[in-house]
């Protein structure tokens, strides 16, 4: 079947297509790929990096362990040049991607690991009395800011991550609050699809809160798509206003 497929395809598709297809089906009938003379060939480096544990409380440390082969220099973003293999204790203050780049004669290899830092309960006087604390609406809205999204994206931007972490800190300090996350989209695009996209946006904000230590059972998610708009002007500043996950006290 593969042969039939390729024969037909060769007749109709471009050379580029043929190359792609050949990569797909490495069978005996394909010409052997060109290989460089092996004299100077250096194996491409390999790299792995792990963190233990991958989730910590703020202030705790985490052990990074990395191994490389075929590399001449190894660099970890935020740490700098390091040994070819090794371990190191780090104490990140917020959730961090440790990205390792191994450079050798045969090229470069990359590996990364994400360390999630749970934001601690904000220290307040009389900690025990805060259990079940529901705070005030004003305090909630001062501390818990909505998060905004890029065009047709449900990924949290850096500013959105900051907002979500601040929101999580407040929610961890006021455990009596249940939160309703509303997912919103700008007016462009299709209403049905935007409801699904709004759901994905609200879900991304929920995931950020859960990773920051807020119990999932305290969070409810509703997508409003473009059914309830914050503004109706047809310009980018209004579109940005509408591309958000909104935090409300779920009463």
């Amino acid at each position: 079947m593969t042969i039939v497929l390729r024969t037909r395809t060769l007749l109709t598709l471009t050379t580029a297509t043929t190359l792609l297809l050949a990569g797909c089906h490495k069978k005996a009938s394909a010409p052997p790929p060109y290989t460089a003379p092996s004299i100077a060939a250096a194996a491409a480096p390999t790299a792995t990096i792990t963190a233990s544990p991958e989730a910590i409380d703020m202030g705790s440390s985490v052990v990074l362990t990395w191994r490389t082969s075929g590399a001449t220099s190894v660099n970890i973003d935020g740490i700098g040049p390091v040994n070819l293999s090794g371990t190191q204790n780090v104490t990140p203050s917020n959730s961090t991607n440790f990205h390792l780049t191994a450079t050798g004669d045969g090229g470069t290899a990359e590996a990364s690991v994400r360390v999630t830092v749970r934001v601690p309960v904000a220290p307040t006087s009389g900690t025990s009395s805060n259990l079940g604390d529901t705070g005030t609406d004003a305090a909630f809205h001062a501390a818990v800011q909505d998060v905004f999204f890029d065009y047709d994206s449900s990924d949290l931007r850096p500013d959105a991550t900051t907002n979500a972490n601040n929101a999580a800190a407040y929610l961890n300090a006021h455990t009596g609050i249940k939160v309703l996350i509303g997912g919103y989209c700008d007016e462009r695009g299709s209403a049905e699809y935007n409801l699904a996209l709004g759901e994905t946006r609200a879900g991304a904000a929920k995931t950020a809160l859960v990773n920051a230590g807020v119990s999932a059972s305290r969070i409810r998610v509703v997508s409003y798509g473009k059914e309830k708009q914050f503004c109706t002007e047809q310009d980018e500043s209004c579109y940005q206003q509408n591309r958000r996950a909104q935090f409300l006290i779920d009463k």
Partner: protein
Amino acid sequence: MTTRSLSAPFRCALLLLGVASAAVLHAQDNVLTGTNTGADRVRIAAADFKAGSPDAAGLKRVFDTVLFSDLGNAGVFDLVSKSLQPQVQPGSPAELKLADWSGGATNASFVAFGSYGVSGGRSTVNGYVFDTHNPQYPQVLGKQYVDAADENGARTVAHKFADEIILRLGGGLPGIAESKIFYVHAAGGTKEIWAMDYDGANPHAVTHLGTISLSPRVSPDNSRVAFSSLGNDGWQIRVFSLLLNRMVTSPSGGGTNLSPAWSASGQLAYSSSRSGDPEIYVADGNGNGARRVTTSRGPDVSPTWNPKTNSQIAWVSGRTGLPQLYVMDADGAGIQRMTDGGYATSVSWSPNGQFLAFAWNRKYGPGAPGGQDIYVMDVASKRWVQLTNGVGRCDFPSWSPDGRHIAYAVGSGARAEIWTMLADGTGKHRLLGSGNDMPNWSFR
């Protein structure tokens, strides 16, 4: 070619599909939707009916207007303009002179005529169709209809007579004049499900829920309407019985539940985020036994069944970024991507299984040229044709039961209107003004 590739490893299949799509996905003007096959249209004249009594005149005018409009809407006739017709109203075969109709400017091959009588609160309509070129045996159709002597009855009889004529002379496909269109009507901050006749007449509310209800889909037997409604438990699939004239219970799943779709055999597919991410689920007609059929991260929404086979589902997925059209088997296997880029949503599968109608913005992005328009794609070849252009943002195409028409929304939000056109993009006209969105044409 693409079918063969499905047996290859999945990664390769995707790659091959991407390449093959790029090779064949060019604008085609030879997508044959059944209304643009070049066959000569039958020239037919619809005579004004003869009123059986003076009090029938008002209803008769309604009947004449609706019949003329139905035959014109059908898209399969060359309908003789009223101004080219002889000034006679033959009420019975004995009063018809074929020569009046076959020659001159009228030049009709067929003539529809008859009488409209009212007695005892009932309308009695005798309708005939005669072949003007067969003087010896001219009668093609002769039927009597009885209905209530009111405007709705006059409309109903006209629709039935038109459908009979379309069935006889229009290539054997039943007409659609008796079909309904369900839609979303926005007013006062709420959105309710409404219904109307296929020609925009008789718009009326179906639900009175006082919230936002979207995506109405009428069941194949016209007994129920499923839709998505925002309640205290978020978006749920809810069902209204058109027989009981009230809501019926349907299971409430967790998460956001959107965009129900009936198969021709009565199964329901819809999008649900009960597992955390919007995915396509398939359940029975009562919403029970839901099982998940997609597993990819990113929004999956707006399923539509292949009404011919009931074994395939087309839907919209944002798994690679902007939403694209995909087709899969109803169990989630054999996924094919159909569109090669842009922003593609709101897919509807044609009754003969051959075409997908969908909304597509091919150059999506801030400042990009063009807009969101209705397209039709031939499923087997992935060739497509653009049906709307320059009228504003078009969305939510829905096929008529005969596959010759597509209803769609123009504009969005409170500005949305409902329009209809033939499946080759001709005959566009508005059915409802602003505040009406998401049309869904009944199965029959």
